[in-house]
C-alpha cells in the first residue's frame, strides 16, 4: 500500500509542481524570463534523456540535437499539415503532436542505435555526430520543410506547465528505469560489455532501447520547442547544441539524473545571467585569471600530496581559495596603476562565453567525475552526507 501511496503522491506532486511553476511564471515574470523558464525545462528534458544514453548506458553520443531536431520538425510538419482538418482543442493537439515528434525521433534513434552495435568509443561518437549533421543539411535543402529559411508552426497557445511536466516525466522515467532490474542491465553494459554479455545481458537490445527511449524524450522536447517558439530553423539545432547538452551531462556527473538536471538549469541560466554584467577593465580581468590559475594549481598540488589528513587538506583548500580572492583584489588594484590595463575595458556581454568556458574548465579540473559523480539525490543520501559531516566535525573538535 505504501508503494502506491508514494507513487500517486509523487505523480500528484509533479503535476502540482508544474502548475505552480506556470502560476508563478505567469504572475511575476515578464515575457523574456517566461521564455527562459520554458527553455530551461526543455534543456532539463534533453540533458536527462541524453544522460540515459550517455551516462547510464555508456554509449558516447554527440548527436543529441539531431533527435531534438527530428522531433521538432516532425511535430511542426504535422501541425502545418493537419491542424486545419483535425479541429481538436489546442492542448490535446499539442500533446498528440509531441507524441508524434517523439515517435519520429525514436525511429531516428533506432536507425542510429543499430550501427552502434558494432561500434564503440570514438567511432560511435563520430557516427552520431555525422548523423546530426546529415539531418541538418538534409533539412536545410528540403524546400517542403522550409529549407534554411525555417518553418513556421501556426500554433498560438503556450503551456508552461506541460513543458515542465514533460521534464518531470523524463526524470521519473529514467529514475524508475534505474530502480528496476532492466535498469541494472543498462548499468552493466556501461561498466563492462563483455562481462555483461557473459552474464546473459542482451547488449544489442539494451543499447537500442537506450537510444530509442532517449531520443523519444528529446523528440518530445523538440515538439514543445517548435510549438512554443512557433518558428524553427535548422540552425536552432546546430552541432553546438549537441555539445552544450553533452556538457550538461558530463558536468553534472555522467550517470546521475540529479546531476544532469541541476547542470542543465545552471548551465542554461549562467550565460543568460552573464548578459547583464557591467563592463570590466583589463586589470580586473588579468587579476582574476592569474588568481584563479594560482588557486587551481595549488589545489591540484595539495590533492596529489597523500600524506595530509583530511581536515588538514580542507584547511589548505580554504586558505588557497580565500587567499586567491584577496590576492586577486590586491592584484587588480596593483595592475590598474598601469594605464593601458586600466583604460582597456571589455564588455561582459561579449566575455560571457569566455567566463562560461573558464568555469567549465576549472570545475572539470577540480572535480573530473562531475559535480554529483554517480550520486543521486534522495533523502537517504542527504542524511548520509550530513551524518558524515557531523562525524568529521566531532573528530576534529578535541
Amino acid at each position: 500500500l505504501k508503494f502506491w501511496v508514494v507513487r500517486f503522491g509523487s505523480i500528484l506532486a509533479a503535476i502540482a509542481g508544474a502548475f505552480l511553476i506556470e502560476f508563478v511564471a505567469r504572475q511575476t515574470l515578464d515575457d523574456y524570463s517566461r521564455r527562459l523558464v520554458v527553455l530551461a525545462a526543455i534543456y532539463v528534458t534533453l540533458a536527462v534523456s541524453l544522460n540515459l544514453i550517455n551516462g547510464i548506458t555508456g554509449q558516447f553520443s554527440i548527436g543529441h540535437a539531431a533527435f531534438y531536431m527530428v522531433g521538432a520538425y516532425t511535430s511542426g510538419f504535422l501541425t502545418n499539415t493537419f491542424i486545419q482538418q483535425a479541429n481538436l482543442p489546442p492542448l490535446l493537439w499539442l500533446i498528440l503532436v509531441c507524441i508524434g515528434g517523439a515517435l519520429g525521433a525514436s525511429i531516428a534513434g533506432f536507425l542510429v542505435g543499430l550501427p552502434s552495435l558494432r561500434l564503440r568509443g570514438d567511432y560511435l561518437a563520430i557516427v552520431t555526430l555525422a548523423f546530426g549533421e546529415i539531418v541538418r543539411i538534409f533539412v536545410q535543402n528540403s524546400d517542403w520543410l522550409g529549407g534554411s529559411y525555417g518553418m513556421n508552426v501556426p500554433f498560438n497557445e503556450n503551456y508552461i506547465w506541460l513543458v515542465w511536466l514533460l521534464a518531470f516525466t523524463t526524470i521519473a522515467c529514467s529514475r524508475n528505469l534505474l530502480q528496476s532490474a532492466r535498469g541494472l542491465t543498462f548499468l552493466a553494459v556501461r561498466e563492462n560489455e563483455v562481462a555483461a554479455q557473459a552474464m546473459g545481458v542482451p547488449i544489442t537490445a539494451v543499447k537500442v532501447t537506450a537510444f530509442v527511449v532517449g531520443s523519444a524524450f528529446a523528440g518530445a522536447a523538440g515538439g514543445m520547442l517548435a510549438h512554443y517558439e512557433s518558428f524553427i530553423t535548422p540552425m536552432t539545432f546546430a552541432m553546438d547544441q549537441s555539445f552544450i547538452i553533452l556538457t550538461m551531462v558530463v558536468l553534472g556527473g555522467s550517470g546521475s539524473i540529479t546531476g544532469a538536471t541541476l547542470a542543465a538549469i545552471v548551465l542554461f541560466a549562467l550565460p543568460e545571467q552573464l548578459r547583464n554584467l557591467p563592463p570590466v577593465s583589463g586589470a580586473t580581468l588579468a587579476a582574476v585569471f592569474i588568481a584563479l590559475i594560482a588557486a587551481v594549481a595549488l589545489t591540484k598540488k595539495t590533492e596529489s600530496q597523500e600524506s595530509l589528513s583530511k581536515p588538514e587538506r580542507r584547511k589548505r583548500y580554504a586558505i588557497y581559495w580565500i587567499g586567491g580572492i584577496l590576492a586577486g583584489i590586491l592584484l587588480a588594484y596593483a595592475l590598474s596603476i598601469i594605464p593601458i590595463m586600466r583604460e582597456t575595458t571589455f564588455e561582459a556581454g561579449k566575455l560571457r562565453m569566455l567566463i562560461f568556458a573558464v568555469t567549465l574548465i576549472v570545475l572539470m579540473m577540480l572535480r573530473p567525475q562531475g559535480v554529483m559523480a554517480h550520486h543521486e539525490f534522495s533523502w537517504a543520501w542527504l542524511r548520509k552526507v550530513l551524518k558524515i559531516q557531523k562525524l568529521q566535525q566531532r573528530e576534529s573538535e578535541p
Partner: protein
Amino acid sequence: MLVTAIVLMLLLSQLVQRTSAGRAMRAVAQDFDSASLMGINVNKIITLTFIIGSALAGAAAMMTATFIGTPLTTFVGVQPGVKAFVAAVLGGIGSIPGAVLGGLLMGIAETMVVWVGLSSYRDAIALVILIVVLLFKPGGLLGSSAVEKV
C-alpha cells in the same frame, strides 16, 4: 603546399615509427597503465603529442590561410576541426597512412559532389561515406578492429 604537406607527413611517420618518443606514444595509446610501469612518463608523452599535434594544425592553418580567399574569422577552425576528426576516424584512428587516405577521400568526395551539381550537400556526403564505411569496417579503412579479449 603539397610538398610541405608530404614532408610533414613523412616527418611525422618517421617520428612515430622510428624514435623512442614515438615508441612511447604508441605504448601509451595501447595501454596506459602498463606503459607507466615500463618507465614511460605518461603525462610527459601526452603533453608532447599535444604539442606536436597542435604544431601540425598550425602548419595546416598557415597553408589554409594562404588560399582561403575570404577574411579570417574566429570561426575559421570549426569546420576543419570536425572534418579532421571525421577523416581520422574514416582512415582508422592510430594509423597515419589511414588519416592521409581518409583526408584525401573526403576531399575528393566533396569536390565530386560539387562537380555533379549538388553543392548544397557538400558537407553531408563525406559523413554519409563515413557512416557506410564504418558499418562494414568498424575500425576504419586501415585501422585494425581488434577483438576485445577478457
